[in-house]
């Protein structure tokens, strides 16, 4: 009969020796051992073996559920596709913004040939267009933040796949942020952002 104190040690040795063992196989083995030892094992040992069996079944179920999610597809296809789409948005809006700016510069160049009121009206309009074109920078930065989030999800998915032994590259730990990089948060959402007047007040508080 197996000594109760030796059982956990024996199980740990087996786990070390066979790290890639299929949990279902472990459960089958435990069941087979239990069936042949019904009369020999003590109550605590039987309870421990039952728990090992249940644990193996839980791990097997989790693996099956993750396989059903096709997590590898998320990493291999969905996330790269989403980031490509976002990159395309940035590129297209940049091209469109440059076209708008070119048109605006053409209008600006007409200024000196126009009379007073007309010249002022053209300049007012072009100023507003220049200001509005700043959207491209802001949206670009927001999209960059979304891409970074998607990449973080991709790393976590890879890590889950790795844990459950589906043969993927190890997840890489996030790089340590440089001290000044830690202040780079990008555009804030309107509800939490400080406006120019808030910033002016904050700066004035130093004087």
């Amino acid at each position, binding site marked *: 009969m197996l000594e109760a104190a030796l059982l956990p040690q024996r199980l740990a040795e087996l786990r070390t020796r066979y790290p890639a063992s299929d949990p279902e196989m472990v459960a089958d083995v435990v069941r087979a051992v239990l069936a042949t030892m019904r009369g020999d094992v003590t109550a605590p040992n039987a309870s421990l073996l039952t728990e090992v069996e249940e644990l193996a079944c839980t791990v097997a179920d989790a693996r099956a559920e993750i396989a059903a999610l096709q997590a590898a597809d998320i990493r291999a296809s969905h996330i790269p596709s989403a980031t490509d789409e976002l990159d395309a948005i940035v590129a297209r809006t940049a091209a469109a913004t440059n076209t708008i700016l070119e048109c605006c510069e053409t209008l600006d160049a007409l200024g000196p040939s126009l009379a007073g009121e007309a010249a002022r009206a053209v300049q007012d309009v072009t100023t507003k267009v220049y200001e509005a074109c700043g959207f491209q920078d802001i949206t670009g930065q927001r999209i960059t933040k979304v891409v970074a989030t998607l990449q973080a999800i991709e790393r976590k998915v890879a890590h889950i796949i790795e844990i459950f032994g589906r043969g993927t590259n190890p997840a890489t730990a996030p790089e340590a942020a440089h001290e000044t*990089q830690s*202040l780079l948060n*990008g555009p804030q959402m309107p509800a939490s952002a400080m406006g120019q007047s808030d910033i002016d007040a904050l700066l004035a508080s130093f004087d």
Partner: protein
Amino acid sequence: MSIDKSMNVLIVDDYKTMLRIIRNLLKQIDFHNVEEASDGTDALVKLRAGNFGLVISDWNMVPMTGLELLVEVRHDPLLKSLPFIMITAESKTENVVAAKQAGVSNYIVKPFNAETLRGKIEKVLTHA
């Protein structure tokens, strides 16, 4: 006090579109001598080689950020008094405080308008 609008202005941003926008806005308020740099490193080389009266810089750039550029400028004996305006989408209190502590002359949050740009430039240059 009148402002010398013939001075050289260096604008620093890694977004070419943003450089183009700021250049055009500066042109509309009669600053015509404008040079561009694509990041802090590029800016520092140009500042040390040229004769500039004002720097307008973005914050979020690689490899050298606008804040790192500001620190370098303030530690350079020949550049330390140069008026330096940060134009950035970074609008958290800690950003403004860090920029102020590094010696920024003024701080403009994106998106901004031409009037804000004009006002900050005038304020900075009249106090320079």
